């Protein structure tokens, strides 16, 4: 029996998963990385952390760095524009 999945992890290297339902604060979500307690409400399509991150740590999705943490992030935290900065220019320069 398959139950409706709550979050999707695209690549095994990712440190975030994306909610595919609205996830309530306090809910326990099953992911490929185990059970994660959601610390803030995560709307459909938004990301939450699969593990703790320090300021300056890279956020990984699609198996690649998509941004950098600007605040400390705890496992289960909402990961979005309030705590992540874009790294487009850095990614282009590094080649």
């Amino acid at each position, binding site marked *: 029996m398959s139950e409706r999945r709550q979050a999707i992890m695209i690549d095994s290297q990712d440190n975030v998963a*994306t909610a595919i339902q609205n996830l309530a604060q306090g809910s326990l979500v099953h992911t490929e990385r185990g059970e994660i307690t959601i610390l803030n409400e995560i709307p459909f*399509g938004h990301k939450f952390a699969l593990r703790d991150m320090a300021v300056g740590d890279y956020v990984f999705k*699609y198996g*690649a*760095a998509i941004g950098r943490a600007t605040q400390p992030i705890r496992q289960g935290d909402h990961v979005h524009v309030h705590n992540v*900065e874009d790294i487009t220019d850095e990614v282009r320069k590094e080649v």
Partner: protein
Amino acid sequence: MTTFMGYRRADGRVGVRNHVAVVSTVFCCASVAQRIAQATGAVAITHEGGCLELGPDREHTEQVLRGAVAHPNVGAVLVVGLSCEQVQAEEIARAAVGKPAHSLLVRDEGGTERAIERGIERVRELMEQVADAPREPIGVDELILATQCGSSDTSSGLASNPAVGVLADKLLAAGGAVFLGETGSLYGAAGLMARRAVTPEVGQRILDITDAVERFYARMGKSLREANPTPGNIAGGLTTLVEKSLGGVRKGGTAPIQGVLGPAEQLPVGKKGLWIMDTSLGLGMHIATDLVVGGAQVLVYTTGRGNPVGSALAPTIKITATPETIGALGCNMDFDASPVLVDGESLEACGQRLWEKLLRVASGELTKAEQLGHTMFAVGRVPV
């Protein structure tokens, strides 16, 4: 080797359709070509180009028209011209090597209505000539798959594009080829894509083509970098431009990038693997047309909110993972990827279903756009 049923053409390439194409050389005879196509069931290959096109812009238009008539999905061709234009009907007809081809000029025929009558006769003759062309078993290593997305929403980057990526990786593992275009959309992922390139030169080309688009916008005081992600994207959960671009390029899969083709440049015979095509400032069907003329026989097109249009030259498999779109635009969708989001289907299993769909479509199963007649051919301008 997995096979599909395809048409072997005189130039050695393989097609998945046997279209009779009615092509117009310039905008002034497009309606004549369309009327001939409508009356006979042939495919109209029309565009809005005209005689003021110069330089790379004109070269691109001619390259697209020549590439369209030579395309392996086309079995026979009628080219309609006016008589005074720069792009000569006879020349375009000659590009249809190894297949029956005619041209006619509206002026020589004595006006539009006579040209339409004559054109209908000609097309019916051509249809009879190619009606019995046989399909034969062809290895999937001869498939070139074009990929595109449009009207994307959150589901596109989470389910549809990754599922197409699984499909792309399967085709590449079987020895086929895959095209990834939409140059502007690559911008945030360009550095990462460059690192996947087989040589530093290819990597540099990837950066150059995306830079060129950003520079074009800069001249107008705009910026891809600053405009993305959009407020709508952010509300939907996209945090950075890198994330947005990666969600798009995921549909090309994870393989190394063999090279970068120019707009509508044909993949050299014998070349395989994942290729990026610079579709420059092309939009929507400009992109689809360029990718198909480059040699792709099938277009896989992911959509979130849904749009119904497909390529006139190549069957277009419309994929969505948004259940509301299956509801609202169900008659226009070919593949439902929503089980990935709703039922816990793995991306692997979804990609396998899509692979089976691809083989059926390549072997003749009609897509919704083909069945319902919502196909389009469009030529983009190449910026001065």
